[in-house]
């Protein structure tokens, strides 16, 4: 499976250079905008775009036909894509955190803000990956745009308000014993379960696929 990760990285090399330029651009837009949440929202988008692009490369060059006949099991092929998604989310979160600090947020706020990426990134990925494996990357892109629009709206709007919401808000009276970090950990755990369900669904879809 190491070979698969190397292959995806090689394919994505050129794209990554372009993404870095775009990220820098968005960073300055966020700076001008005064909205660190905006920057985080974009980073979520990139986190999910990267595995999608990896799958697109495979589909367009006929790699799957080779991979399925090799010693790699179909499960490993899918696992490598989810791993890439996870790596993308982690790296995006780190960049979002750093970016957020430069934009003026404190370390704790920045970490919290970027940690919020995890649930959103995972939920987007969990929804999109099976769609892509079942219907192809083209149709997946439509689903992607819909989910990204929703994600940006939520993060940009809710992001800066999170400290207040998690504070003494009535909404959280029921879980008043949980700090916002525990709540976030719980949410991330829940999303991880969702991610696993998505993985097994993708394995099933890909397992039945004919090339």
């Amino acid at each position, binding site marked *: 499976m190491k070979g*698969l990760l*190397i292959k995806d990285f090689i394919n994505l090399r050129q794209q990554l250079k372009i993404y870095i330029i775009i990220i820098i651009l968005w960073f300055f837009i966020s700076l001008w905008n005064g909205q660190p949440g905006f920057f985080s929202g974009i980073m979520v988008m990139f986190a999910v775009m990267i595995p999608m692009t990896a799958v697109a490369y495979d589909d367009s060059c*006929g790699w799957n036909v080779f991979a399925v006949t090799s*010693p790699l099991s179909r499960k490993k092929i899918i696992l490598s894509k989810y791993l890439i998604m996870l790596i993308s989310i982690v790296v995006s979160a780190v960049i979002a955190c750093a970016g957020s600090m430069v934009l003026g947020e404190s370390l704790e706020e920045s970490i919290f803000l970027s940690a919020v990426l995890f649930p959103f990134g995972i939920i987007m990925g969990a929804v999109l990956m099976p769609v892509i494996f079942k219907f192809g990357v083209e149709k997946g892109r439509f689903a992607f745009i819909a989910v990204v629009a929703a994600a940006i709206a939520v993060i940009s709007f809710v992001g800066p308000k999170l400290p207040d919401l998690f504070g003494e808000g009535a909404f959280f009276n029921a879980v008043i014993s949980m700090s916002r970090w525990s709540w976030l950990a719980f949410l991330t755990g829940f999303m991880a379960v969702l991610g696993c369900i998505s993985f097994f669904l993708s394995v099933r879809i890909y397992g039945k696929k004919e090339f």
Partner: protein
Amino acid sequence: MNNAIEITGLSKKYDGFKLENINIVLPKGYIMGFIGENGAGKTTVIKAMTGLIRYDSGDIKLFGESFKNIGAAVRENIGVVMDDYGLPPEADTKDINKIMKGIYSTWNSRAFFRYTEKFGLPQNKRIKSYSTGMKRKLSIAVALSHNSRLLILDEATSGLDPVARDELLDILREFIQDEDNSVFISSHILSDLEKVCDYITLIHEGRIVFSDEKDELLASYAIARCTVKTFENINKSAVVAFRRTEFGIEALVKRQMVNEALITDNATVEDIMVMMIKEEKR
């Protein structure tokens, strides 16, 4: 375990096409050529054999092991080259080596670079800038660079120039020197197959027409070119197919069953295939 490939009763149905009761046996150490028209089912059989598609009924055994139980270890021994598979466009040969090292536990880097050099493949160019022929050669280099005991090639020679095709045939001959190695190759270039194959299997409209030793095939059949009158005197059960020409009749006959006095020419594999198929269509 004497057979590299053993297919029994393979059937697969699609809308508008079906594979029916395919039976193919390739003994270990030999080369089998798989021929047929476009759309006859060659690629479908090969895809079933390599796990790319599922089949409705029948059994496929590779190296004596039922396909359903084939694990990673057996796949290390199978090298596949297909018409529609591709390697990562952004990679060059060094990258491919790194990738394959992480996929095949029996990957042999030295052998791989030896083949890429032998095939004249450029070292630092990305695959997206390769010609079709170069991509094909690279795929073949990959298939030969892990512990392949069975090569399955689908139209691997199409897109190659005559010199490259000849080189490939030499490589297959070299590969088969090892008695444990076998090759299953489909191709439209029947003259190539005739040069190098031990067995020939013809598929037509999803059914196997014949699967025989090549030498026996060529010995069994002959082409009789004669006048209509002479043709009428030939034992009808000896005639497999015939067609009218400017000069009379051209018939594919079974050598053993015709009069020794009848003048016949040797039939090539192409003659046999084309005439049999045209006869089926009449």
